[in-house]
């Protein structure tokens, strides 16, 4: 186990005038044993950053450290990391056992030790009965666990996960999420987990790195990210349905953007007059899609509350305790 540091990390693909910069100076310190989730929209550079840690991509600028050691230019094999890939990348011609043992055997561990470690990992992951199977004979969830097993047996300093759950169906995903949580609690290995799924990010992270266009917009606990998004981007990205961001609503200062989550809108006879555009019942609650002047907003109410009719005008106001204010130009949080 080790800490993981990013110092002004930069990545450019290609050279000369045709080069594209995809990571623009990321700075972050991850503590020993922390579970960090990296989120952000597609193409924002999550995988790139992860692969730079793994050594699968060169580091164009800056420095990445694992523990005390700067790893720039060091081969993947020598970085003492393990990685779980989105498609698991299991060796299809090897049994589950051999898949897990591969890395150990290459490192020439005694066969007894290999066997002991693999079996221990298999037990933790409830794979013991499957050790002789081929990956093709496993279900998606089982493959996922083998991929984790392969990472675990190595007892590396850092775990890297690149959207390891995205090939699973919703149910299995929820379940595996819990398993990963448990595993981290047991092993305590520093982990960097990439996803673009909010629920995954919120539930798994000790701290989250929210990425946008190759920059880190916020690096904080999930609570903090949800409660005090550092920027308009983070505010709009986290939360489903997302935070309402209003520029022209009554009372909003010019040059600022008011943010209010759908669940933080209250009925108020004195409030903003909004027209009901559509209503969606989601079991326990209802989403009201409202129109306020030029702007759309969404309000969330319990399903048992009476719902207004379509086209009706309703009056609402934001709950002051939960108002967010952003600078309209820089997009940064003001208060």
């Amino acid at each position, binding site marked *: 186990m080790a800490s993981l540091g990013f110092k002004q990390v930069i990545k450019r693909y290609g050279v000369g005038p045709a080069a594209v910069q995809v990571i623009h100076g990321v700075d972050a310190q991850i503590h020993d044993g922390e579970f960090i989730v990296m989120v952000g929209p597609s193409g924002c550079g999550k995988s790139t950053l992860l692969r730079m840690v793994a050594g699968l991509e060169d580091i164009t600028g800056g420095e990445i450290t694992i523990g005390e050691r700067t790893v720039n230019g060091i081969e*993947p094999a020598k970085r003492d990391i*393990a990685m779980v*890939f*989105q498609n698991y990348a299991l060796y*299809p011609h090897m049994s589950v056992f051999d898949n897990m043992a*591969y*890395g150990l055997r290459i490192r020439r561990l005694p066969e007894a030790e290999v066997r002991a470690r693999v079996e221990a990992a298999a037990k933790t992951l409830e794979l013991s009965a499957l050790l002789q199977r081929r990956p*093709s004979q496993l279900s998606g969830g089982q493959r996922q666990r083998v991929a984790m097993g392969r990472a675990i047996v190595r007892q590396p300093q850092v775990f890297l996960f690149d959207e390891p759950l995205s090939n699973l169906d919703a149910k299995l995903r929820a379940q595996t999420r819990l398993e990963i949580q448990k595993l981290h609690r047991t092993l305590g290995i520093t982990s960097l987990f990439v996803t673009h799924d909010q629920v995954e990010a919120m539930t798994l992270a000790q701290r989250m790195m929210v990425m946008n266009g190759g920059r880190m917009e916020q690096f904080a606990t999930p609570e903090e990210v949800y409660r005090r998004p550092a920027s308009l981007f983070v505010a709009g990205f986290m939360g489903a349905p997302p935070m309402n961001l209003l520029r022209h609503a009554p009372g909003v200062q010019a040059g600022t953007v008011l943010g209010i989550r759908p669940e933080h809108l209250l009925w108020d006879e004195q409030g903003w007059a909004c027209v009901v555009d559509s209503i969606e019942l989601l079991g326990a609650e209802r989403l009201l899609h409202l129109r306020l002047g030029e702007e759309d907003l969404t309000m969330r109410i319990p399903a048992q509350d009476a719902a207004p009719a379509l086209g009706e005008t309703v009056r609402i106001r934001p709950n002051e305790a939960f108002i967010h204010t952003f600078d309209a130009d820089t997009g940064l949080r003001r208060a």
Partner: protein
Amino acid sequence: MQRKVIFPNRWLPYMLLAPQLAVTLVFFIWPSAQAVMMAFQQQDPFGLAVQWVGLENFHAVLTDPAYYDSVVRTLVFSTAVTVLALAPALALAVAADALIRGRGAYTTGLMVPYAIAPAIAGVLWLFMFNPAIGVVSYGLRSAGVAWNPTLDGTDAMILVILASAWKQIAYNFLFFLAGLQSIPKSLLEAAAIDGASPWHRFRTIIFPLLSPTTFFLLVVGLVYAFFDTFGVIHAVTAGGPAKATEILVYKVYYDGIVALDLGSSAAQSVLLMLLVIGLTLVQFRFVERRVHYS
């Protein structure tokens, strides 16, 4: 075997099949049946006197030491051709797959021999290795190598093997390249993280994952070496010297067409046909097995 959703129609499928079936029945099934019949007959070249001889032709073939010589020769030849066409093709494919730029140009160049007829490939190699005027034989002679494929059976064998393998490399190369490119890059990355060196990755990941392709090419290569190399041998050595390059299929041709011993030739054909059926079945079983892999 069949899709779930189909069209209900009584006569249309037969209409659609008619041309194919007609050609197949008239030009394949019927003549083949006749050929099998001939294997049980003894007849003079002109077909003027025909008599049934039962298994006599088979007996004669199977007790003829020359036939076994040819079997052994065929094994040597096919193994050599197959291996010589596979190994360089694999090396080339690995090299091409490793390229970041310029793969297309090499691929184009390397696949040209595919387009060349075996008979013409034979002519090309014969020309280069012709003991009297060939550039390569001249080079060999100057280098002190006694090269005479018209006399030395080994030289002749080497020559037809080289010519046959040369033509087949293109085919193998394309398949290996396709196979390599279908290996997910993440597997190799995973292996790299697991600490495997490039050679190790090749040996423990790439090569095993290519094994379906390799096996397939092995079978195809054997069939090629058994049958399609006829043109090469015909053009280059005509089976000589001293039958040193007379592989089974050439023997069928020679005994039937040159020596006009139709019964024996037909019996040998039937034996060869059994061999092809065997190889085809092996290949099909294997194709089924391969489905498991992905």
